[in-house]
C-alpha cells in the first residue's frame, strides 16, 4: 500500500512538472516576454537591461529552472495589466470559485443520488424513465447553453433570481445548477447501476428470504454499498468542476478564478494565465491522487502492484 501511494505521488509530481514544462515552452514560443513592457520610452539600453533583469541572456534551461523555482514558491510574476502579483490576484478569486464548486457539488449530490436510488428501486416505472431520461439528456446539454436558458426563463421571464454576479444566496442558485447539472446526471447513472447490481446480489436475496423489511433492505443493505461508486467518483468531479467553472463563471460573470483565467487570455496577460493553469493543474492532480487512493482503500480488489 505504501509503495502504491508513493508511486501515485511520483506520477502526480511528474504530471505537474510536465505541465510546467509545457507552459514554459509555450510562453517562450509566444515571443520575447519583453515585448509586453515596451513603450515609447524604451531605449536599446533599457531593453537590454530589462533582458538581463529577466534573465533572458542566460541559456533557456537556466531560464526554465529559474521560472520553475519561482513558480514553486508561488511567484508567477506580476500581472501585465494590474501590476499586482499574479498569485495574489488568483488567490483573491479562489474563494468565489470554491463556493460555486461547493454549491454545484451539493446540487449534484442531492438530486443525483436520490433520483438514482429511486429509478433503481422503482425499476420500469415513471421514476425510472424520468431518471434515465434526466441522465441521458443531462450529459448532452452544453453547460453554457443551459445557463443562458435558465437566465432567460427564470431571471428574465419570471424575474425570480438575479441574472449574474455574486451577492446573497439567490446569486448562487443558477450558477450552481448550471455547473452541477452534468454531474447530477452522472450521479443518477452511477447510483442507478450500482443499486441495480446490489439489489440483484445474493445477500440481498437472502435478506429478502429472511423477511427483512423492504425499506431496511433498500437503505441499509443496498444503499450503503451502492454509495461507494458515486462517492469515489466525486473526487474526479471536483476536478471536473474546477474546469467547468471556467465556462460557468463566464456565463454568470462570476468573479472567480475561471473568469480571471479567461480574462487573462483576452488581455494576453501571461503571468496570470500561467499561474492559473499551474494552480488548476495542481487541483486536478491532487483530486486524481485522492481518488486513486480512495479506490484502493475502498475496493481491495485493486492491485497495488
Amino acid at each position, binding site marked *: 500500500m505504501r509503495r502504491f501511494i508513493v508511486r501515485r505521488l511520483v506520477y502526480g509530481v511528474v*504530471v505537474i512538472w510536465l505541465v510546467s514544462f509545457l507552459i514554459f515552452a509555450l510562453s517562450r514560443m*509566444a515571443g520575447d516576454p519583453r515585448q509586453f513592457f515596451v513603450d515609447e520610452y524604451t531605449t536599446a539600453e533599457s531593453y537590454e537591461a530589462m533582458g538581463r533583469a529577466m534573465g533572458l541572456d542566460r541559456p533557456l534551461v537556466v531560464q526554465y529552472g529559474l521560472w520553475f523555482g519561482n513558480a514553486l514558491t508561488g511567484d508567477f510574476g506580476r500581472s501585465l495589466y494590474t501590476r499586482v502579483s499574479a498569485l495574489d490576484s488568483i488567490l483573491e478569486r479562489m474563494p468565489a470559485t470554491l463556493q460555486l464548486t461547493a454549491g454545484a457539488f451539493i446540487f449534484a449530490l442531492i438530486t443525483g443520488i436520490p433520483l438514482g436510488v429511486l429509478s433503481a428501486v422503482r425499476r420500469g416505472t415513471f421514476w425510472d424513465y424520468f431518471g434515465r431520461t434526466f441522465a*441521458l439528456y443531462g450529459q*448532452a446539454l452544453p453547460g453554457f447553453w443551459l445557463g*443562458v*436558458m435558465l437566465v432567460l426563463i427564470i431571471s428574465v421571464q419570471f424575474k425570480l433570481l438575479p441574472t449574474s454576479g455574486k451577492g446573497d444566496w439567490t446569486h448562487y442558485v443558477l450558477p450552481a445548477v448550471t455547473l452541477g447539472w452534468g454531474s447530477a446526471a452522472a450521479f443518477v447513472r452511477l447510483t442507478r447501476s450500482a443499486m441495480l447490481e446490489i439489489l440483484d446480489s445474493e445477500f440481498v436475496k437472502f435478506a429478502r428470504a429472511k423477511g427483512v423489511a423492504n425499506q431496511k433492505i433498500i437503505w441499509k443493505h443496498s444503499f450503503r454499498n451502492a454509495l461507494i461508486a458515486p462517492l469515489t467518483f466525486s473526487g474526479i468531479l471536483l476536478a471536473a468542476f474546477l474546469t467547468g467553472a471556467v465556462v460557468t463563471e*463566464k456565463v454568470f460573470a462570476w468573479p472567480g478564478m475561471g473568469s480571471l483565467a479567461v480574462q487573462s487570455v483576452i488581455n494576453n496577460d501571461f503571468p496570470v494565465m500561467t499561474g492559473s493553469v499551474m494552480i488548476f493543474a495542481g487541483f486536478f492532480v491532487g483530486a486524481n491522487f485522492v481518488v486513486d487512493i480512495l479506490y484502493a482503500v475502498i475496493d481491495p480488489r485493486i492491485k497495488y502492484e
Partner: protein
Amino acid sequence: MDITENTATATPRRISGQTLWKQTWRIARTWPLIPLIIIGLLVSSAVFAPLIANKEAERGDIFFKNIPPIWYTEYYAQNPDDPKFILGADALGRDVFSRVVYGSRISITIAGIVLSAGAIGGTIIGLVAGYFGRNIDELLMRFVDLTFAVPFILVALVVVIVFGQSLTIIIVLLIAFSWGVFARQVRGETLVLREQDYVSMAKVVGASPVYILYRHLFPGVFNTLMVVASLRVGTLILAESVLSYLGVGVPPPTPAWGAMVSDGRDYIATAWWSTFFPGLAIFLTVLAFNFLGDWLRDRLDPRLRQLAD
C-alpha cells in the same frame, strides 16, 4: 374452405402481418431511428449548406438587428418591408437559420478529422503498448495518463494565445485530448488477444510483429474501436463548442455554434432566438450521437457498459 384458409393464414399474420404502425414501432425500438434521422439531417445540412441556407451566413445588415423569427407575425405585419428570417436575425443582422446550417459544417469537419486522427493514432499506440508490453507499455500509458491529468480547457486557452485562433489549432488540440481514450481501450483488448493461441501460432510460423498487429490483433479490437468512437463524438462536439463559446474556437465570422450562443448572451432578454437555436443544435447533435453510441455498444460489445459512465 373458409376455415382452413383462416387457420392457415392466421399464424403468419400474427407474426408479420401487424399493422403498419406496430411495424414502425418495432423498427423504431430495435433501430436508433430518431438519432439516425438527426445525424442524417446534420450531415446533409453540412454537405448542402449553400443550398439549404437562404441567406448569407457571415455577413448581415445591421439594419436588421435582432429581427424576430418568422412566426412573430405581428412584427412582420408592422414591418412588411423587412426580409423574412426563418429563425430570426442576430445582433449583427445575420440570419440565425443560415448560421446554424453553416455551423454544422464546422462541427462535422472538426469531429470527423479529430475522430479519425485520434482513433488511428490511439489504436496504433494501444496495439503497440498492449502487444509489446513492458517498458514500451509503461511509457505509452504514462502519456495517456498525462492527457487525462491535464486541465484541457486551460491548456487550450494558453495554446490559443500563443498560436492565435485557427481551425488547425483547434483540431490539433482536440486530437491531443482525444487519442488517449482509444489507446487505453485498445491496449486493454490487445492484452487479452495477444494471449490467444492463434497469435502464438502466428508467432511460431514466423509472422512479423507488424503483420500480427495488423492481421491478427487489429480485427479483434475493431468493434471496440467503433463503440469508443461513436461514444466520443458527443464529447468532442461539446468540447469544440466550449472552446468556441470561450472565444478561442474557430475565428469569427465563421459560424460556430458555441460562439453563436456566446454572441447572443447579451441580447437574451430581447432576442432569445440567437442563443436558443445554436444551443439546441449542439444539444440535439450530442444527444443523437450519444444514443447511437449506446446502441452500438449494446449491439457490438456489451462488455463496454461502464464506458458511458
